[in-house]
């Protein structure tokens, strides 16, 4: 291992110092102004999408294989469980049909404004969070598939997060556990409003509970629809622990094991305009949802 010549070492030191300074400037700019890097982020995400997709395939294939083996081993027990579940669902189907007819009649009577139509696409997760300070994933669907900023990302179990950047063929989802995620929610049952605040831990906390009302372990948390970014009633999680005034929520969705996500368009796209266009109009560079949500970390 020969040492670097002295002159080369001096150049090396100067260039390293300049690059470190450039990185520090980027950190400061990125923290204070999210818009500066947004278009660059989207371009890089689009450009890297094929490579990320390629890298994610072996892991996805292993996951599918492991799941198949697991299902094969548990087929008898699973059959019994499904038979029981089928019985329960047949009963619930009848209840749902009755409620649906009743709901239709009540809407007719009260002249309720119909809710906007809902559509969704399913996308595969192609990159994970990649570190302890960011909780976001990238999916292999973008604007050309109808994905837009502000749309909800769900699994079959519940809310995962929302789209914060939509490129042409890839999009980034800010998870509800991210330090910068704030989701207006209600405690189902008591109807008390609160904000679900991520802090990079596995269980986001409930803050600003309406009237400081009591929240109990096991309470169901759903979106409130306040601010118009997400529709009301999306399942989020269960209160898993209450320590003094702080309640922790266990998300329904298994966030560390996301493979496919449903990106749902509830027809609320206008609620969250692109900050790039807001900035271009000379508007204030904040999340313009009006919901009090802070902008995602950039």
């Amino acid at each position, binding site marked *: 291992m*020969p040492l670097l010549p002295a002159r080369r070492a001096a150049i090396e030191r100067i260039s390293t110092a300049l690059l470190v300074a450039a990185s520090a*400037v980027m950190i400061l700019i990125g923290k204070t102004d999210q818009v500066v890097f947004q278009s660059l982020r989207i371009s890089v995400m689009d450009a890297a999408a094929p490579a990320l997709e390629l890298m994610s395939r072996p892991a996805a294939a292993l996951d599918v294989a492991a799941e198949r083996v697991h299902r094969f081993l548990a087929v008898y027990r699973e059959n019994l469980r499904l038979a029981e579940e089928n019985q329960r669902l047949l009963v619930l189907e009848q209840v749902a049909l009755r409620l649906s007819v009743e709901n239709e009649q009540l809407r007719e009577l009260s002249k309720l404004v119909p809710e906007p139509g809902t559509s969704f696409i399913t996308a595969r997760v192609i990159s994970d969070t990649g570190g302890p300070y960011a909780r976001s994933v990238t999916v292999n669907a973008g604007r050309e598939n109808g994905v837009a900023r502000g749309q909800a990302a769900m699994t079959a179990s519940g809310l995962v997060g929302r789209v914060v950047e939509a490129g042409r063929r890839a999009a980034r989802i800010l998870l509800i556990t991210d330090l910068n995620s704030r989701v207006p929610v209600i405690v189902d049952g008591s109807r008390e409003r609160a904000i679900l605040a991520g802090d990079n831990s596995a269980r986001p906390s409930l803050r600003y509970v309406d009237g400081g009302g009591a929240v109990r372990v096991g309470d169901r948390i759903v979106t409130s629809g306040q601010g118009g970014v997400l529709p009301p009633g999306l399942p989020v999680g269960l209160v898993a622990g209450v320590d003094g005034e702080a309640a922790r929520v266990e998300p329904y969705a298994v966030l560390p094991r996301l493979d496919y996500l449903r990106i749902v368009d509830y027809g609320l796209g206008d609620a969250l305009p692109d900050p790039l266009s807001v900035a271009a109009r000379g508007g204030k560079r904040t999340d313009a949802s009006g919901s009090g949500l802070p902008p995602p970390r950039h």
Partner: protein
Amino acid sequence: MGNLLPIATMVVAGLLSIAPLHIGWVAAVAPSFTLIATYHWTIYQPALSPGLALFVIGTVQDLLTGGLPGETSVTLLLCRAFVLSHRRYYADRQFPVMWADFSLVTFGAAFGLWALHSLLSAQILELRGPAVSVLATISVFPIVSFLLGRTQRMLIGTD
């Protein structure tokens, strides 16, 4: 072709660091393969792993993960500067000594990032995630370093 090996492996390391592995805790505590590759190549082939390449790779990784742009590049550049500043020390060192040295570098990098994020978010962030990530990075270092060494011998030869 062999001259591009350090940069190519660092790009692959960057992609591996963010690939979805679907193993419960791995996403939050994924080892920093990029840091391992940076440490390795700065010791054995510093001329083939220039600071500018680390800057670009780190920045792209941050842009892809949604992290603060610049946080990974500053970590990689400081790691490189640290290793270069006492490169003489690494000559003929045993692997356990290098492993211990890399552990110090990883602890330093993780603590620096934790302090930076705590400062910028004006709150003391939890240490469990970064601590497990440090342990994961240190644990996989021998395997990754061995693989990089074998690839280096095959394609470039020893320095």
